[in-house]
């Protein structure tokens, strides 16, 4: 399984755009990149998923370069409610398992 590396923590001010970069140097051809968000006392929640280039939904954007060895989660105009832990994961549909790292603890400052 491809291991992921992401910053342990990040701080940002309200209204800013936040970019969290994740490296996954050993990603396999069949692997997808997925991001989850976790608030205290809740289970992780799916944010976005992609294979290559750029994916955008109502919550975030995901940028994946051509070599797919890294990815960047972009959160536009963050608010205090975006304070959470963000996990970058790599998985394939063959085994359906998600292997979590320690994630990035994002703190939004008013």
């Amino acid at each position, binding site marked *: 399984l491809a291991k992921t590396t992401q910053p342990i923590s990040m701080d940002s001010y309200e209204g800013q755009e936040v970019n969290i970069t994740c490296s996954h140097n050993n990603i396999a051809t069949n692997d997808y990149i997925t991001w989850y968000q976790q608030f205290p006392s809740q*289970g992780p929640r799916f944010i976005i998923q992609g294979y290559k280039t750029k994916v955008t939904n109502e919550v975030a954007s995901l940028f994946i370069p051509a070599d797919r060895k890294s990815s960047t989660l972009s959160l536009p105009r963050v608010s205090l409610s975006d304070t959470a832990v963000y996990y970058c994961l790599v998985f394939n549909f063959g085994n359906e398992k998600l*292997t979590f*790292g320690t994630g990035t603890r994002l703190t939004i400052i008013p």
Partner: protein
Amino acid sequence: EAGVAQSPRYKIIEKRQSVAFWCNPISGHATLYWYQQILGQGPKLLIQFQNNGVVDDSQLPKDRFSAERLKGVDSTLKIQPAKLEDSAVYLCASSSLTDLYGGGYTFGSGTRLTVV
């Protein structure tokens, strides 16, 4: 759509006692997972079911942990006897292949276990 239901929400027990957690997945989801999340860490997969069969239980401490998914719907996770290091949040998640292509797993809110 109803989410993944888990109970109880909190549980405090003494070491060497037993405890059981219950999970009701999203209707129609064939795959069910139990994760253990220790404070400050990411969730760790304990066991994965496909319908009522076990797909992966390689990280389940089988000397004290057991899980079942009768009839391929609800699931229970049991710990007997509990140790202090079992204090954690136990998360249940479910998925279907269709959901994975369009999104991801759905997690419950978890059961916070404290062993004293």
